């Protein structure tokens, strides 16, 4: 792009890079310091992304997480192929790299002693996209929660529906919403935590359907992408558009909760509701 860009710069594998850059305020930190601060920016308090496993460690009581539905994985029913090659190859590489078999990890666990069904999305798994496997895991979790009378907690992180699985990925929005509806009808609580980023088909289905919808500081939450909107309305959008704070102001988020307080907050709500 610019003359100043050094195209010859050697690529450093991410695990060997020393610096972490806050995507919100662009401040540089030593990677070890960023990690030590739970991936929270020490300068602007942006709550960075966590892997599903890191989030589970933060949330579940030690040793209580019992994973379910791991056999439910992506489906290449369309034999989808794009400019980068076959979807199957991309999905298999993602599985090898992340060790996960879908974009949501599901399991029963305790949170400060409260038994719950916990689902955590992993943005590193194909952008946390909602595929048929993701939708199936969530629907099964809702049904299992109803049978076991467990509250449901889902941490979302997703760019939206998974194009590679075509129309059936869109249908997961309806399937998950229907399953969440049944869980709520059964009188069970559903706490939705929208983490950075939660957009598109995931925000427009189960993520926005919590009995309470909560989030972390500076998370990006929205339906359409900023660029799509700016191109449609021919206007610049405010800098804080679609931020956690913006959504709270407009009435779509119950509360912004700091990462260190999240576990206690969920337990407190379950306590109020008698679960």
């Amino acid at each position, binding site marked *: 792009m610019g003359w100043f860009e050094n195209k010859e710069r050697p690529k450093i594998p991410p695990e060997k890079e020393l610096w972490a850059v806050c995507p919100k305020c662009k401040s540089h930190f030593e990677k070890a310091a960023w990690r030590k601060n739970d991936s929270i920016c020490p300068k602007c308090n942006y709550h960075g992304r966590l892997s599903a496993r890191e989030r589970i460690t933060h949330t579940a009581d030690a040793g209580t997480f019992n994973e379910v539905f791991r056999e*439910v*994985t992506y*489906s290449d*029913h*369309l034999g989808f*192929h*794009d*400019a980068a090659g076959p979807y199957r190859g991309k999905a298999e590489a993602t599985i090898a790299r992340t060790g996960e078999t879908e974009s949501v990890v599901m399991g029963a666990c305790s949170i400060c002693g409260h038994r719950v069904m916990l689902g955590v999305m992993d943005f590193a798994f194909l952008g946390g996209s909602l595929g*048929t*496997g993701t*939708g*199936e895991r969530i*629907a099964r979790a809702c049904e299992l929660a109803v049978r076991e009378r467990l509250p449901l907690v889902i941490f979302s992180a997703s760019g939206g*529906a998974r*194009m*590679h*699985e*075509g*129309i*059936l*990925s*869109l*249908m*997961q*929005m*309806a*399937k998950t*919403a*229907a*399953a*969440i*509806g*049944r869980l709520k*009808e059964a009188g069970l609580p559903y706490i939705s935590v929208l983490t950075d980023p939660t*957009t*598109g*088909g995931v*925000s*427009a*289905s*189960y*993520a*926005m*359907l919590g009995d309470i919808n909560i989030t972390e500081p500076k998370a990006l*939450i*929205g*339906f*359409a*992408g900023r660029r*799509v*909107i700016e191109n*449609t*309305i021919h*206007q610049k*959008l405010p800098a804080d*558009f*679609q931020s956690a704070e913006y959504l709270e102001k*407009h*009435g*779509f988020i119950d509360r912004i909760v700091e990462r260190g307080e999240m576990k206690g907050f969920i337990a407190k709500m379950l306590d109020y509701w008698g679960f």
Partner: protein
Amino acid sequence: MSGKTAMDCVKLARDPARPHLSDFIGFMCSDFVELHGDRFVNDDRGLIGGFARIGGEKVLILGHNKGASVEENMTANFGMANPDGYRKAMRLAGLAEKFRLPVVTFVDTPGAYPGREAEERGQAEAIARSLEFFAQLKTPVVVVITGEGGSGGALAIAVGDRVLMMENAVYSVISPEGCAGILWRDGSKAPEAAEALKITAHDLKRLGVVDVIVKEPAGGAQKNHRAACAAVKQAVLAALAELKKISPEELLGLRYGKLRAMGNFY
């Protein structure tokens, strides 16, 4: 179907000469009474609804309204609904449930409106709630995909007991242009994306998303509105006759089962 590509269907589905909501209402219904507003902020023009008679049946009609004139195109955002539109749809569908009338929806939208106010008033929340709402609505719902079934904005009024799709309509998780821009990094690869996404009526029937394909007049619905609408009317009445025999409780169970089976490969 012979020789027609997915992109040919996209072009037909978007043809401005194709029958629009006002044509379907005009040719299929009598005594349409439009009802306005979401009771909060607005009366969205991109998604409209009201009571009508189709043949001998009293129904609630909901549908995306692309608009028949340039002026109407603008006020209706070419059928791209705002959250207010989906909230109005839920309000009216609630009335249909209360008075035990079936709902017939007409789906034809590029997608939900991507605007600043749409986001501020909760586009994601409105669509999400609509999906949950229609899954639990205790009255028959017949969905007709008439033109463009554009992603979440289409799905928000497309959860029902029978999904009918016109032969040249398309229904997709993302527009072929949007998909090509992301996965091919080149919007001009839309025909390849359209093919890969499997968005035609025949593809969707095979995938179990669509129950009935409504045949169009030779050359497409734009050539003969009257005949196209008559075929849709017949298919809607057939679906309503089947659904009438099922009790509301049983209907909810069947509808859940239908959604639940979508993409369960395990």
